[in-house]
Structure formats: structure tokens, C-alpha cells
């Protein structure tokens, strides 16, 4: 295995990091659906909080994706 293929193996391994982000976002929105089902009057407030939380969680997935991109075009 030459050194170039190690780079591509590293890129593939980096992309596994997005798995955590997707599970996190799914968690947030599943609890949002549960909460809206229990209390539909608070839908707006809950949705705002969910969007904030999803933005923060997705950022960590984007960190992993950004590192993979930087590796790919290095």
C-alpha cells in the first residue's frame, strides 16, 4: 500500500464521524415530536429550541466533514 492510498483510507475513516451527528439530530427531532404530541400549544417555542439544538449538533458533524474535505484536497 503506497502513501497515497493511506490518504483515501483516512478520508473514509473521517467520514464515519458524521454518523454521530445524524443520530444526534434524529434524537433531537424525535423528542421534539414527542413533546409536540404531549403539548401542542407550545409548538413554536419547542421548535425554536429544537432548531438551536440541531444547529449545534450538526456543527460537530460538519467539523468531521470539513476535516475530510481538507484531507482530500491537500
Amino acid at each position: 500500500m503506497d502513501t497515497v492510498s493511506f490518504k483515501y483510507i483516512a478520508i473514509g475513516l473521517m467520514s464515519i464521524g458524521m454518523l454521530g451527528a445524524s443520530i444526534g439530530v434524529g434524537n433531537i427531532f424525535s423528542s421534539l415530536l414527542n413533546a409536540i404530541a404531549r403539548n401542542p400549544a407550545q409548538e413554536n417555542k419547542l421548535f425554536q429550541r429544537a432548531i438551536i439544538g440541531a444547529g449545534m449538533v450538526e456543527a460537530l458533524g460538519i467539523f468531521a466533514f470539513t476535516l475530510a474535505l481538507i484531507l482530500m484536497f491537500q
Partner: protein
Amino acid sequence: MLLNPFHQFEITPLIKLSIAGYDVSFTNASLFMMLGIALLLTFIYSATRKASIIPGKLQCAAEILYEFVESTLIGSTGKKGKIFFPFVFTLFNFVLILNLLGMMPYGFTVTSHIIVTFILAAIVFTIVILTGFIKHGLHFLSLFLPNGTPLWLAPILIVIELFSFLARPISLSIRLAGNMLAGHVLLKVLGAFVAMMGMIGFLPIPLMVIMVGFEIFVAVLQAYIFAILTCVYLNDAINLH
């Protein structure tokens, strides 16, 4: 032909200047920042020029923007946070207009550069720390030791809280820069597919349309998240927990 998707982020100097050996040229990044501020000022000025009690359409748009930022600030910090409204309003609109200018064709995304977002996050962090120390003095450091922790847990908890506090400007800046960078690189890679596929190059185009729509949503959302995290950090400084 391997088209480089990072070519769109290159900073090219338009007017070369240098002061005392430092390169302070007017670059395309500076041009887009000035263009964003000019657009913003034009909008706010023309919307509030003939301000009437019953607003017309343009004034209504500016009022919606104002009330949106005001409600997030007051919702996070309470009445004491009203003094920070110009700061949060400027920050939110600056990031929003820069993100949206990046989505225009041939537009340069200034906020995809980590140096720009790092300076914005450093300004927020400095204002949070200064507010905390001016308002509360050394009692501000009680932020790191929540009420009712047992004494044996205190040293470890202070270290953990300190590091999570110091991670705030880093995460704030990398979140914005990473989202913008990743989105635009993805669009360029999809565009390279369209260019390389020749005759059947129209096939990835619906996907590109969906991705452009998603990127506009992410641009607005990331500006909102930057603003609301600023409000949350200001709340930590003004009302200690």
C-alpha cells in the same frame, strides 16, 4: 480534468496597499464585506426614512427583523440585556448578509474563512468577559462552580467548566466557517459532476437545485444560531446562572 473546489475561496487582492511592510490590500473579501454593509444600510435607511405609525411594506420588513432579534435577546437575557441590542442586531445582520451574498452566483463567501468568524467570535467572547467582570467583579468566577456541589467534586468541576467555557469561541467560529465551507465545496463538487458528465450532464441538476435551497436555509439558520448563542453567553455573563 480535476476541477479544484477550493478555488472559490481564494482571496485575491484588488488594490495592493502595504503599510510598514504589512499587506493591507483591498481584497475581494473586503469588497464583499463593504457590499454587504452597503446593502444593509440602504435597506434600513430606506425602510425607516418616512416612518409612519401604520407601516408600509418595506418598513414592515425592517420592523419584523428588529422584533425578531429583540425577541431572541429579551427571551434569553431578560430586561437587563436590552443594552446589548445594537451589538446583537449588527452581528446577526452582518453574518446574515455575508452568508446570503455567498449564495449569489459569483459571490464570495466571506464567512467561510476561519479568520473572519474567529474575529467575530473573539469579539463576542471579549464582550462577555468584560461584561461579567465589570458587572460582578471577581464574583463572576462563581460561574465555574455551580451551587450545591460537594467539596470533593469542586476542583475537577472547575477545570471541566473552565475548559467548556474556553471552548465557546472556538466552537462558535468553527461552526459558522465549517458550515459555509462544507456547503460551498459540496455545491462545487456537484457542479463538477455536471461538467464532467457531458451529454447526460442534466441529471445531477435537480439535486443541485435542492442543495442550493438547503444551503440558503443553512445560511439563514447559521446566522440565527450565531446570534442566539451570543444571547445565551451574554445571559451567562449578566445573570450568573
